[in-house]
């Protein structure tokens, strides 16, 4: 929106005296304090006649600079000498004005300037989601921070957002989405949850009360290699992208790789299978990083892992038909959560233990977290029930996230009120 106003202003000016032939708009996203400093230096070089459409605000936040043609070489040299990367957002400002292509700037594929202009109603790439994380942190530095808990097989960072109003090692809730990469509505919902937490806090409603005494950890792209693969190559890829010695095929099912009944019935020992458990528990860095995080945190009270599809809310166990010791409480809590979810759009969810409701599954996430003592361990399977399956239409993202959030709040509130 701001770009349009600025361009409109330029149109007004251009019709009077100035011309913008050859002017370029460069975008820099400072990734370090050194880089930020370099960009800020430019602001003091008045002879360059730079016009900052977006002034430097902080790390990870875009800086947009309209550079007059005579200054282009100097500015680019200044940035390149310091190793600061930039992109050319507008190659020739005058050409843009001449063609009256103000509409180009409305394109949804432009990088959003902030989390208010981010489009929650569409599916995004990993770069777009990672940029969103940085924007959210930059806009809410007192509430949100980004933790790197590890790196994937293909060396992508594994990022977790921490939402905290203070304290030290407060009791916490963990939510992850996208552990199975083809379940796109989950990552998309995770992005929506992140924004929702920030909004609730700002408006002192919803989860604001939970944040008074608890922290929330949210890992949105839990399987980034798989997610990148669903964009580049195979939309229906589920597993990680690891290659293990002796394995013919690529990838391990990250929801069979946990140390709970590992390798028992309910997972496959065949690397080509979609439920391949991997060579040993936690062989996958995507899994190990969470295991390490949970163990070192030591104070997680609720752990919720989000999948799609089938419209189910599940609790342990999957690897054994022995009921979990807390199954009655978990069942009652699931009933409440599902009722809350359903209250919004009438979406019907079933609930129960993994093994009785869906099928036997060994080495699953919440069986491990439950056995670690995290009583409120749940797995969601979001919309739908098979009509679109993994290919859920984008217009269902926000309704899905909204209804799921109501169920998550029920679980979080119960965890807060029932933890010692």
């Amino acid at each position, binding site marked *: 929106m701001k770009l349009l106003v600025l361009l409109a202003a330029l149109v007004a000016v251009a019709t009077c005296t100035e011309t913008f032939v050859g002017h370029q708009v460069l975008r820099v996203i400072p990734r370090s304090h050194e880089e930020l400093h370099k960009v800020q230096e430019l602001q003091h070089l008045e002879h360059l006649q730079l016009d900052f459409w977006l002034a430097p605000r902080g790390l990870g936040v875009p800086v947009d600079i309209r550079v007059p043609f005579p200054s282009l070489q100097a500015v680019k040299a200044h940035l390149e000498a310091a190793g600061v990367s930039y992109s050319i957002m507008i190659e020739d400002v005058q050409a843009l004005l001449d063609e009256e292509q103000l509409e180009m700037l409305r394109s949804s594929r432009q990088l959003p300037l902030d989390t208010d202009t981010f489009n929650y109603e569409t599916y995004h790439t990993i770069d777009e989601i990672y940029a969103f994380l940085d924007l959210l942190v930059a806009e809410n530095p007192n509430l949100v921070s980004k933790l790197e808990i590890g790196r994937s097989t293909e060396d992508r960072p594994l990022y977790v957002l921490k939402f905290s109003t203070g304290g030290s090692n407060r009791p916490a809730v963990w939510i992850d989405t996208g552990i199975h990469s083809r379940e796109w509505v989950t990552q998309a919902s995770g992005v929506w949850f992140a924004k929702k937490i920030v909004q609730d806090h700002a408006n002192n409603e919803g989860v604001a009360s939970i944040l008074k005494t608890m922290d929330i950890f949210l890992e949105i792209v839990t399987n980034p290699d798989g997610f990148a693969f669903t964009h580049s190559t195979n939309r229906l890829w*589920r597993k990680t992208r690891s290659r293990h010695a002796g394995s013919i095929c690529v990838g391990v099912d990250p929801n069979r790789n946990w140390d709970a009944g590992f390798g028992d019935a309910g997972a496959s020992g065949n690397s080509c299978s979609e439920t391949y458990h991997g060579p040993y528990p936690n062989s996958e860095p995507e899994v190990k990083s969470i295991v390490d995080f949970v163990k070192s945190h030591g104070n997680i009270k609720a752990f919720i892992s989000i999948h799609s599809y089938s419209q189910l809310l599940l609790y342990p166990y999957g690897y054994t038909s022995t009921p979990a010791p807390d199954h009655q409480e978990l069942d009652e809590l699931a009933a409440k959560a599902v009722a809350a979810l359903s209250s919004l759009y009438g979406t019907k969810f079933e609930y129960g233990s993994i093994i009785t409701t869906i099928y036997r599954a060994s080495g699953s996430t919440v069986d491990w977290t439950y056995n670690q003592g995290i009583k409120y361990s749940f797995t969601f399977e979001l919309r739908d029930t098979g009509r679109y399956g993994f290919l859920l239409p984008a217009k269902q993202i926000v309704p899905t996230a909204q209804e799921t959030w109501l169920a998550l709040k029920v679980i979080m509130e119960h965890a807060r009120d029932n933890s010692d």
Partner: protein
Amino acid sequence: SPAMELPPSHFPAARAAAVAVGYLRYLRGGPGRGLELRELRRARRQDIDDVGHKYYLELELEDVLDKDRRVSCTAEVLYHLGSTSCAPEVQVTVQGELRSTEEADQEFYNRIRSLEKELVAENIPDSHGNVPPELEPLHLLAWVASGYVIWQNSTENTKFHLAQVKHVKQVKRNDEDLQFDYVLLLHEMVSQEVLPWQVTVLWHPQHGARVSQ
């Protein structure tokens, strides 16, 4: 032995329901009608000695193009012992009327017959779940094809859904039928596998669909 009540919310019953829905899509679906399961109301299972397991189901369906109407059905699904080799036996009774598709069927038939170039399409829905409106009839015809495949290939331990139409190609014929060669991707819930399946569908407004794998 007597029939045992099953929780309709749990997968063993849901698997049998998926077979019944597949069978019904094959029998009654078409480019103008797609049947979807709204709710499994009731499920019972009977173990018949030397024969197999029989499921008795009460289902509520909807026609995705006629959503306000509720369609109630009863179904029986018999999985034969050692059932990996033969298809489950299915019987379905639909209560009441389904919306007529005569007009839509004829319009689709005429449109395809009048195409100069054979129709080709892929990735229905696309990665974002979109189906262009002009491809919706082909999408629903894929439900007919996948319904047949699901019925023919299900066992008590599988639950299939159509994940995506990977590819569809029209093949012009000298007779009156329309022919579409599909590559379907079927998602099997228990193994989580996505299996490609080649299917040919012959369709005619008055003769309905015939499917061959």
